[in-house]
């Protein structure tokens, strides 16, 4: 029997820096029950130093952590922890990510195209959940891939674009887990 877990993002909005309760309180999503389903992937790579770190989270709470120079490890998170981190992403509207729309908002603010940051880290995020809903927005199966360079600079340049803050928040979540579950040196 399919067990559906409903996460109410509004209850967790305080965990999502930059999110306002009024805009995110309606967001809901279903965590897939297939235990092998990858629900969140965060990979940060420096094209300059080749340093890479990643966190792959599955719907059953299995978390694979990896960082350059350390052995990969696997830890187990609670179902509540899975909901919590996905709620942080939802509160920043990352499950609605539309790269073209984000670029249009940047262009509207700047009035002209701007260059990215040379040598900035690159972050790739994958989000995958079942039904997602916020206000009039309903998505049956969320499968988002977000790939940008210089997320931290983007967050400070465009504080009004909450998706950038959300990406930085997910990186901070990954870094916290990497610190919480340190790996052995390779």
């Amino acid at each position, binding site marked *: 029997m399919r067990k559906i877990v409903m996460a109410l993002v509004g209850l967790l909005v305080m965990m999502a820096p930059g999110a306002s309760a009024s805009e995110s309180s309606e967001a809901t999503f279903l965590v897939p029950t297939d235990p092998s389903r990858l629900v969140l992937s965060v990979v940060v790579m420096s094209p300059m130093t080749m340093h890479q770190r990643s966190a792959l989270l599955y719907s059953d709470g299995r978390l694979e952590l990896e960082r*350059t120079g350390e052995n990969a490890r696997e830890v187990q998170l609670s179902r509540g922890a899975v909901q919590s981190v996905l709620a942080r992403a939802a509160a920043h509207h990352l499950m609605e990510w539309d790269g073209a729309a984000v670029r249009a908002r940047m262009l509207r603010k700047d009035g002209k195209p701007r260059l990215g940051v040379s*040598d900035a880290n690159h972050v790739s995020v994958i989000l995958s959940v079942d039904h997602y809903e916020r206000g009039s927005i309903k998505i049956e199966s969320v499968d988002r891939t977000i790939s940008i360079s210089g997320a931290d600079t983007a967050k400070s340049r465009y504080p009004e674009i909450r998706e950038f803050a959300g990406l930085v928040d997910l990186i901070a979540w990954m870094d916290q887990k990497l610190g919480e579950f340190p790996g052995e040196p390779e």
Partner: protein
Amino acid sequence: MRRLLISALLVLQGWQGTALAGTFVGADTDPFEPYVVVHSPGYDGTGGVLEVGIYADRKAQPSLERAITVWNELQRSVQNCTSCRLWEQGPGTSEEPSDLTTVLIHELGHCAFGLDHTNWVGPGATPSSYTATRDASSITNGADGFIGTKDDVVTPLPGARLIHWFRKDTNDPLTPTEFTVDSSTYSRRIIDLPAGSSWPANGNFVVGLVLLGYDGPGVPVTQAVMYSVIDRPTRYFGLAADEVNTVLFAQSGLDEIAGTPDDYTVELAYVADCADAVIEVQFTELMEGSIGQCSPDLESLAPPGELAVYHRLVPPNGERLLLELNSSADWGFLFDDGFEAGNIGSWSGSEP
């Protein structure tokens, strides 16, 4: 000799990737066009000497001054790099501190001259050692089996856009011969590639070994400083021909003809007062894995309504171009006031 070279390079064969060459920032970025030419900050189409002041705190000053000297000399050198690594090799295991001068040489290429990386970033934002190319879906080694050389195979064609500039006569980014660099000798058009070339070669050190020969283990190699990867022990001692050629091309001015009134040269100079600086070098907390970054903007030099080919670097905030160094990176400093770099001012009156 040939056998030595081949054995040294065998491990580098077979990777998927692209080659890198002299490129300008923006060439690989929508909505800028692939044919952009980027000029140093302050250039307005008037020829002469352009002075670019750079400020850094005391900790970075000695390294900055060394990096400034390298760029002001603008010499094509060989064997300019030790412990160079290609992206495909992955990070080394050395725990040596990163070299501030090396990182500053690379970052000044972005911040002061508008140069971009010479290598291709492929699908999934994965860097490679193939030549910087726009809109390519794949690049593979050509018949010579080496990455980034002139016979690499780029897909799709038509479709992939050439953004790496090259010598029309040789398509050789690393041999340090003197020549007049302007539109008569330097190009990014595919029809200008010399016979035997399918794509521009880039300045990664494998291309250097192929073009300049292999002088044995431990001998420095030749690599463009604008290659994107800087491993912890990597040290650059000078520029390669590639970046010198590309800077000289820009300095042939808006008419792209050397020897005309709009030609210019750039004189970088350390300035003690940040208010006088065009570029500010700043230690700041960057994300883990970063060592340095530069965040310029581009301003078109074209009159309104005309195609925006020529740009100059401008600061995003209207004040100074920011060159950031990661304060959390291991730079080998024990103290934070430049003491180890020779600045003993703060100790002059202290005991014992």
